[in-house]
């Protein structure tokens, strides 16, 4: 009896041991198999084949872009601040994803500035959608206004994202400082005292800010990406003007912020430089009783031309205020390859006051609208031989002139769109000669054309028709089974 029990015990112990071994074996085998599959995937990730099968090859990056991407040898970070609900976001996101997928060095982070304002603040992003490229300590900001161009002649949007992004990448890869020089020596605003916020904004965007006293130094520094003249109170001398003229002729970029003055004949040489560019500044103070800051008619809020510079501002409904401004205009019959365009202008009820004594109202000496408050100067480039005659002339940014400089002062720059305006202006001018030319892809905005009847038919067929047919089939099958 005892022996049988002992045998029973031994047998069940044996079976349990076998079960345990079998169980353990199974677990080890499973882990091993999963491990192999995971390794297989890691390998597959590195040695992958990726095909863009879209009709317009919209996800295929150009050769130039691939070259640039392949030249990376350490982590490049792209932080894209994009509003989720913007219609443009998917396209931009897709393109940036493609950059990230094509190189293991590129890391992409997409942030919605509304959902994560702290991150946006850390990068100094205000209203505009922007992509920040970082590489080896260098930064480059690409505002999304640079990525879509409204070709007004055709009314079509051109997506130049790849061009903008690859250019940004090239800029951060290049180990060069991009310096913005503020002129000094004429009581201009100093980036170290009066316009600290402006300077910090530029530095955030990867620029280095310095000052230059042209009279003393006698030359424009080689690394100048743009020169800013911020509110001079004294005129420049001839040598300085000649330096600036040569600089401009040699593809230099200029931002001129000139405050109003009642003195006729003030800043004659500086005016001469602006005239060279095709711009005449008026000796007046713009008074706008209808569009002004808190009803102070001396602080007009200008209308803005739809342009790369103002695109973000217009889209987010941001205004700009210019406290104490003078008007400017295009020089008539100016024969040069400079093209002047209006950027900011005052309302039809405004006027340019020429005499501040007595009451301020419109009299015969005063200037009538149209009163421009800001203008953009471009240089027209020679056309490419293969360019189609309907395509507009290729142009290059040269200068932006605004009839006010106090809008960039620390106390005023925080008003609505002021900061964005000045930073956009500098960014617009600072794009450099190595303008990357990547032909933009045709936007695949495939429209559907349905009449109300057709739309209706489509809706009912897809929502009710199709499932209905399936249910009907099921019903028939079920009924037939019941009658069997």
């Amino acid at each position, binding site marked *: 009896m005892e022996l049988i029990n002992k045998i029973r015990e031994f047998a069940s112990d044996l079976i349990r041991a076998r079960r345990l071994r*079998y169980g353990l074996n199974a677990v080890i085998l499973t882990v091993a198999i999963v491990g192999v599959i995971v390794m297989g995937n890691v390998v597959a990730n590195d040695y992958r084949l990726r095909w863009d099968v879209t009709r317009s090859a919209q996800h295929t990056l150009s050769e130039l872009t691939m070259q640039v991407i392949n030249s990376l040898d350490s982590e490049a970070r792209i932080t894209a601040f994009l509003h989720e609900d913007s219609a443009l976001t998917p396209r931009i996101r897709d393109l940036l994803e493609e950059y990230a997928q094509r190189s293991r060095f590129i890391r992409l982070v997409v942030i919605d500035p509304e959902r994560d304002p702290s991150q946006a603040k850390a990068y100094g992003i205000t209203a505009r959608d922007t992509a920040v490229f970082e590489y080896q300590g260098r930064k480059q900001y690409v505002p999304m206004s640079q990525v879509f161009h409204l070709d007004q002649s055709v009314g079509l949007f051109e997506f130049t994202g790849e061009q903008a992004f690859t250019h940004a990448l090239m800029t951060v890869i290049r180990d060069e400082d991009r310096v913005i020089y503020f002129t000094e020596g004429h009581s201009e605003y100093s980036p170290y005292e009066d316009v600290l916020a402006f300077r910090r904004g530029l530095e955030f965007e990867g620029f280095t800010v310095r000052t230059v006293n042209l009279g003393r130094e006698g030359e424009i520094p080689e690394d100048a990406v743009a020169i800013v003249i911020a509110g001079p109170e004294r005129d420049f001398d001839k040598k300085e003007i000649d330096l600036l003229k040569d600089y401009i002729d040699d593809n230099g970029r200029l931002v001129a912020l000139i405050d109003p003055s009642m003195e006729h004949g003030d800043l004659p040489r500086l005016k001469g430089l602006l005239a060279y560019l095709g711009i005449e500044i008026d000796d007046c103070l713009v008074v706008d009783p209808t569009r002004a800051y808190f009803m102070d008619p001396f602080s007009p809020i200008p209308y803005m031309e739809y342009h790369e510079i103002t695109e973000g501002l217009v889209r987010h409904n941001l205004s700009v205020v210019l406290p104490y401004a003078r008007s400017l205009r295009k020089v008539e019959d100016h024969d040069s390859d400079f093209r002047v365009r209006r950027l900011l202008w005052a309302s039809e009820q405004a006027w340019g006051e020429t005499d501040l004594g007595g009451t301020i109202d419109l009299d015969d000496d005063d200037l009538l609208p149209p009163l421009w408050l800001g203008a953009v100067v471009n240089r027209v480039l020679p056309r490419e031989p293969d360019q189609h005659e309907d395509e507009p002339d290729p142009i290059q940014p040269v200068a932006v002139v605004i009839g006010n400089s106090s809008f960039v002062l620390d106390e005023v720059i925080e008003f609505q769109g002021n900061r964005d305006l000045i930073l956009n202006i500098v960014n617009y001018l600072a794009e450099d000669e190595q303008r990357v030319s990547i032909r933009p892809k045709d936007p695949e905005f495939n429209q*559907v054309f349905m009449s109300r009847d057709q739309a209706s038919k489509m809706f009912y067929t897809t929502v009710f028709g199709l499932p209905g047919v399936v249910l009907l089939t099921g019903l028939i099958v079920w009924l037939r089974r019941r009658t069997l």
Partner: protein
Amino acid sequence: MTETTVTGKTKTPLTKVWFVYKRELTSYFLSPLAYVTLAMFLLISGYFFALILLATQFAEMRGALANMGMIFMFMAPVLTMRLLADERRMGTDELLLTAPLSVADIVVGKYLAVVSVFAVGLLLTGLYPWFLVQYGNPDLVQIASGYLGLLLVGCTFLAVGLFASSLSDNQMVAGLIAFGLLLLLWLCGWAGDTIGGTLGSIFTAVSVMDRFIDFRRGIIDTAHIIFYLSYIAVFIYLAVRAVERRRWS
């Protein structure tokens, strides 16, 4: 290893799987479940497709396909819950397990059957691109690429559901487990986005829905295809192991 059946035909492994497949597929289409599930899938998918089309007026299916993927995530547990769970409950598993069929044959055969049901559903949604062609100029290759992605994603969901049903005798429980697992998988994508650093990138790497995006955009990437096939293989394997365990207890 071939065997001779009652009718004198030799049974190769392929015909064994075919046998299970046919049996299961017939069972699906004789029961109301497949029809109701497909109808629901088509109803909700159709609604989203129509809504998106009317709102955007674009001849594309990127949004619609994404929605279909999400919808199918809810449908998959419903379709798979009876696959391996109810055999045991109804006692028919005795028959199957004593027949000259390996567990793998059974599991794979059933899996292929539910995949076929899914495939029928997908084929029926062909109505949507048809409408796009009627009224616009869609990029059909891009849409096809999106469907390929949806097929792979759906098959992955079904494999997870298959595994879930191998874990329980009770269909309801199997369905709940499947739903729970699928939800976890879906959360991986979300976790990858919110959590940063290496942990975040691991989550993104294993996320099922993230890779679907490329297919919808018109990009076919071998790494993604291998990814989905891997998931499917792993879950089918796990299901086989789970059933084998039951057989031996």
